């Protein structure tokens, strides 16, 4: 806690600098845009969560009596599309990256504030298409849109949804473009590459993937839309096309996309672990470069989603080998974070609880990826609940957990208020228990052979499914609680002060909430990141 007497909110800051809806909808301030994103993706998180709840309810009984098969197919499709494209991909970059990254490097804003705002509008446009697809009946292709099912056999509004995803992809591209130019050109004097906080490195690596991978998804979805509308035969075997080509083009983006979804979270973890261990990070260059390595290697492993799809044995060998290579940098990070805690001075506030949960759950999720990369084994577990468990351990146990950790960590900076620590710890615990109960049984189900995307299943799988649904109900509670207490804290939370965590980093040196222009004068950086050992005096910047 702060050593001064009760903190006071600064008189003027980015939230009260200007009032009125126009000042928000036409803002160029990266912080306001981050808040716009926060509101939007939270909406989609809960929409996606509702789909998940319905899925788990359906799977309580083997014969799936709740929904018809067609409806269920729409549920898992919309769950996947919403969660991936409208929540996970933007989450940390568009909220925390937008808010914190410029401040971390000592800049007054991102390089292109108008493009930043445009990227939010593009996101909203994509979201509108997605909602339009929902309202006009929902789509049932699976988030993977495999052809020729999606191009020639379904009458649902596939094209509308594909366009929505395509548009949301451009939002992602513009965010990535903005970050790259910002990190290259707008670092404050003295902020060398080697002094960048690891959160910046992580978002930088993510941005590289965003700009190189997303355009390929764009053209793939354009081709799907054209095929549906005009019956050209690029992916349709009846017209001479190759459905496996779709899979190659789709996964060329969608595999790197999973690294888009996890790398920013890893950046958050680096910030939290150091702060709550009061220690510099162990192996800074290794963590920094492992982010870049993941981004690069992530582009050459896409066909590990296609081992049984009809690729040649030799292709499969190459992609399997490379998939093991891409796992190594993640392992390096986990070990470095753990080593960071060694001989630290550790306190277990909520952000740290989430960060520690991340390390454990991501380790499990990542290692189960090795199962899938193993050729002879993948034949059995591909397209089963094992895959679902694997990627939920990474996406929920990893990314969402990191997002929650980051949200709690930077909430005081963003809003000037603290959330209630008791409730937040409780909800973190509930999330952890609920999550594991939901997804661990799915590993077992998967190895038993329960395929994914099944609305009904053989009765011997019921007990495990019931366990999973029970876990999901607990998990839901764990996510609803923060929604309540965060909103509560806006009015009633304790005023945070500049640096409630006594953390290093430029963002903690300015007021909470920060002024619109971040810094009255451009800072000069003379220290390494995470310089926790030094005598700390955090000046209150007027």
């Amino acid at each position, binding site marked *: 806690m702060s050593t001064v007497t009760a903190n006071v909110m600064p008189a003027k800051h980015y939230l009260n600098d200007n009032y009125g809806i126009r000042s928000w909808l036409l803002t160029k301030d990266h912080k306001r845009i981050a808040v716009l994103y926060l509101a939007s993706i939270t909406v989609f998180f809960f929409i996606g969560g509702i789909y998940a709840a319905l899925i788990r309810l359906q799977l309580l009984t083997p014969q799936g009596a709740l929904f018809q098969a067609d409806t269920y197919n729409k549920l898992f499709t919309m769950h996947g599309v919403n969660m991936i494209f409208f929540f996970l991909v933007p989450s940390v970059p568009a909220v925390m990256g937008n808010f914190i990254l410029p401040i971390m490097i000592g800049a007054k804003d991102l390089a292109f504030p108008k493009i930043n705002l445009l990227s939010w509008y593009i996101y909203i446009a994509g979201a509108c298409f997605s909602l339009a697809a929902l309202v006009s009946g929902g789509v049932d292709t699976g988030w993977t849109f495999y052809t020729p099912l999606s191009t020639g056999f379904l009458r649902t509004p596939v094209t509308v949804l594909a366009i929505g995803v395509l548009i949301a992809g451009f939002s992602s591209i513009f965010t990535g473009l903005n970050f790259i130019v910002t990190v290259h050109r707008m670092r404050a004097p003295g902020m060398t590459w080697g002094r960048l906080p690891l959160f910046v490195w992580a978002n930088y690596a993510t941005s590289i993937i965003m700009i190189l991978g997303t355009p390929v998804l764009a053209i793939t979805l354009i081709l799907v839309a054209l095929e549906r509308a005009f019956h050209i035969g690029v992916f349709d075997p009846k017209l001479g096309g190759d459905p496996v080509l779709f899979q190659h083009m789709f996964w060329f983006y969608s595999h790197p996309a999973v690294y888009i979804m996890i790398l920013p979270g890893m950046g958050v973890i680096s910030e939290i672990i150091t702060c709550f261990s009061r220690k510099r990070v162990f192996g800074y260059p290794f963590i920094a470069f492992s982010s870049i390595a993941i981004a690069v290697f992530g582009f050459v492993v896409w066909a590990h989603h296609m081992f049984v799809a009809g690729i040649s044995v030799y292709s499969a*060998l190459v992609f*399997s080998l490379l998939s093991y290579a891409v796992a190594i940098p993640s392992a390096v990070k986990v070990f470095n974070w753990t080593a960071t805690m060694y001989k630290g001075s550790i306190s277990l506030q909520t952000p740290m609880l989430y960060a520690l949960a991340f390390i*454990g759950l991501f380790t499990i999720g990542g290692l*189960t990826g090795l199962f899938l990369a193993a050729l002879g*084994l993948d034949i059995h577990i591909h397209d089963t609940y094992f895959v679902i468990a694997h990627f939920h351990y990474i996406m929920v146990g990893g990314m969402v957990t990191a997002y929650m950790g980051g949200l709690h960590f930077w909430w005081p900076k963003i809003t000037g208020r603290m959330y209630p620590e008791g409730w937040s710890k409780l909800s973190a615990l509930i999330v952890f228990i609920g999550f594991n109960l939901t997804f661990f049984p799915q590993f077992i189900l998967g190895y038993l*052979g329960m395929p*994914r*995307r*099944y609305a009904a299943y053989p009765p011997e799988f019921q007990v495990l499914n019931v366990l999973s649904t029970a876990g999901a109900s607990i998990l839901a509670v764990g996510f609803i609680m923060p929604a309540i207490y965060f909103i509560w804290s806006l009015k009633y939370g304790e005023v945070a002060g500049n640096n409630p965590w006594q953390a290093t980093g430029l963002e903690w040196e300015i007021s909470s909430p920060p002024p619109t222009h971040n810094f009255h004068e451009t800072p000069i950086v003379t220290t390494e990141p995470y310089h926790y050992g030094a005598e700390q005096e955090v000046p209150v910047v007027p």
Partner: protein
Amino acid sequence: MQSTVPLFPEQASTIAHHVDWLYLFLVAVTAFFSLLVAALILFFIIRYKRTPDREAEQIHGSTLLEIVWTVIPLGISMVIFVWAAVLYFHMQRPPSNAMEVYGVAKQWMWKFEYPGGQREINSLHVPIGRPVKVTLISQDVIHSFFVPAFRVKQDVLPNRYMTTWFEAKEPGTYHLFCSQYCGTKHSAMIGEVVAMKPEDFASWLTSGKAEGSLAAQGEKLFQQLGCATCHRADSGARGPNLAGLYGRPVRLTDGHVVVADDNYLRESILVPNAKVVSGFQPIMPTFQGMISEEDLIQLTDYIKHLSAPTMEGPLNNRSTPEQIRDSEVKQVQDQMKQQETAPQKTSGNNK
């Protein structure tokens, strides 16, 4: 309702326990590293709990440790990779004495056909103790043939034959799932694989009514569709002789040599000008749209079983039919001479 809650699938095929060993090794590795990390974290948060009298020790890093914890995971990964790859090679190569079955997947059912002509829907009877090779194709979208108890899975594509194989070990009934999402009734596209003792299987084969073997039906089609008009063995034939063709290398007009496998036969019927055999004109019309997948399977099976005197080398590698004819005759004459003089080990037509 259910008396037991299974936590591990049955090992009903010869490959199953190999896959399971790999799986268990990976489980062990995962458990080890997860528990290691968890234990370290737990230990650290207790041992290094924040107290006012102790400061954190600022440690930069250790290149040695970085190398250690890069090399060791890499080493373990390589072990897993090689182990899994070897297993995979084995799983992708059906033994040559495998019993053949054909499967056609369509929304939302499985149709199986045996060479003897027996058909079944959504169930597949197989003998134990003998490898079974399933040749699969889809009539519409991508499906996937998945038998968890056997640990086999193969995506089933439209317009292209895929194969998978297994050898059942234990008699029993096992789930067959479609594991590639294929539309409305994807989760209802399930069936069963019934593994039987060989004698039971033999009697099952004879019990059903079949309209004749696949090859016999294929031969009827071969005549009906007019294939026999061009594909003959004599010198005036306008199409290559198909006897003994299956599994042999074929030289095309552009010089490439391809193997005449199931997909080659199928493509040659549907898109004949894709691969034109050297020495022949691309006059064959396409049968696309005029022939169903089942008909194609019958034709393919018929052609597969057309035997001919064994010959070496690519068929039809001369530029004119007459020259081909001459060389064929000469080869056969030579071989007959050799067989008269000394017993000759003829090498087979294996791929």
